[in-house]
């Protein structure tokens, strides 16, 4: 379990990346979603002991990130959003170094790395200089690091950004097979829905919704989403797309008006909380 207690992060005088957030993350997989600049990476970096909070603290499986840093680092593995491979080293070499830093012996590290690379279909590239891998492959190497590390708690900051649909499914199934607790961020709502039982929606440094996906979806009370370019009736308008949440009985009526009808999903939780409204 992860307990976040009034965590605030101020980067400089004007930038409050997190404004005193509190939450308990209890489920095995928790997804953090939010717009660009919402504060997701800041939160992940604070929880994984890479960044000091300005105020507040958090505990990971009962261990305080400020007072018990060393113990926390023993049980976590964190893949930063912006990390890139050292181009001149091979995926296998870098994974080995990472795993050794996590306490594996050299030979253990090599074996586990090979296994994880194989799982993500990267085995054939294990000895190639990383510079020669494609962007998505490079990203997958980092995911492989997290898988191979087998830490009790894993933080994945946008693990599947830039991956093709097949690779994404590979990563998903690998994540599902793990028994670790996982906190991940993503911009793909279907990913959050596929993987996690719990989502945290952050906007401008605040948590605006947090809960089990099923509960959040049921707050729409069985409504549907109707959307149309330049539609006249709307609850939310994004660019020129009009979005209206309607009762099931009105579906035919809106189809006749030229609206597309969609089933409610996480996008709608995101949209309806006003997250997109300022754009």
């Amino acid at each position: 379990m992860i307990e976040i207690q009034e965590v605030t992060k101020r980067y400089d005088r004007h930038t409050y990346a997190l404004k005193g957030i509190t939450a308990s993350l209890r489920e095995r997989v928790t997804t953090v979603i939010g717009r660009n600049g919402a504060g997701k990476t800041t939160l992940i970096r604070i929880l994984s002991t890479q960044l000091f909070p300005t105020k507040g603290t958090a505990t990971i499986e009962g261990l305080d990130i400020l007072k018990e840093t060393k113990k926390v680092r023993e049980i976590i593995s964190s893949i930063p959003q912006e990390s890139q491979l050292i181009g001149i080293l091979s995926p296998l070499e870098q994974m080995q170094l990472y795993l050794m830093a996590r306490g594996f012996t050299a030979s253990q590290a090599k074996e586990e790395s090979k296994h994880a690379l194989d799982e993500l279909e990267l085995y054939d590239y294990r000895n190639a200089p990383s510079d020669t891998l494609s962007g998505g492959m490079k990203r997958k190497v980092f995911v492989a690091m997290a898988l191979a590390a087998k830490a009790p708690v894993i933080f994945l900051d946008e693990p599947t950004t830039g991956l093709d649909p097949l690779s994404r499914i590979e990563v998903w199934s690998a994540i599902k097979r793990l028994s670790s607790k996982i906190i991940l961020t993503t911009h793909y709502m279907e990913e959050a829905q596929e993987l996690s039982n719990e989502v945290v929606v952050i906007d401008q440094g605040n948590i605006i919704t947090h809960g089990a996906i099923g509960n959040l979806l049921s707050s729409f009370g069985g409504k549907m989403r109707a959307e149309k370019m330049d539609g006249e009736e709307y609850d939310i308008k994004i660019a020129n797309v009009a979005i209206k949440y309607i009762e099931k009985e009105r579906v035919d009526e809106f189809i006749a008006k030229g609206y597309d009808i969609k089933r409610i999903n996480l996008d709608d939780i995101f949209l309806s909380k006003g997250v997109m409204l300022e754009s």
Partner: protein
Amino acid sequence: MNPKFILYFAWYYGFYIILRGPSYLVASLSLPLTLLFMVTIFTHGTLIAYAIAGGPIAIVAANSINGAADAAFFRIQIRIQDLFVATRITSQDYMFALSLSYLVFSLPGIALYAVLGAYFKVFMLSSALQIIAVLVLLTLTISNLSFIIAGLLKHIRNVWGITAILSIIMTVLPPTFYPYTFLPQGVIYILSISPVTPAAVLIQGIVGLEPFQVSMIFILLIETVILTFLGRKFIRWRE
């Protein structure tokens, strides 16, 4: 301490870089070899022993200061430092690993000078250990200086300019290529702000070109301690 991690990292990042990007190695040798050539020509060979003795120092110093570019790149650009922060290694492990990789990267140059030094009878086998000790201390001090620079930078671009300037100042100004006795003792102490100076004075003493100055051991040791301490403060391990 995680010695295994340090050794593997240094080997991968020091040695494989030589194999996979040899042009950089040649570049790192070009300045000391050019100076060796010029000193030999201009002094009609009389100072060649000094230029040979100072060569390994110049190489180690330049590679360690250029390490600021690696450390800044790892921290700011490719965020590899961040990846290692959330593991069991300490900032000290990480810094030792990088420092040692710079030393590994310097090995071919040191070997070249060892051969030259043996040929011109500058280096004796009996002084090898002392010379190695000085080179290790120098690697540590200058690497830590480079971690300080890397930690202070906000943008990666500045690193190239700063290291280019520092590497010239630190390798050419101190008595790496000429007898330290050319300088008044007061100037030597002033130049000792750069750890290259005590290292160069020590080497000239060790190989018997000039009198050995015990005080330089202390200066180099104190600088190692101070810079290691400051390096740890400035690397921005947990930001």
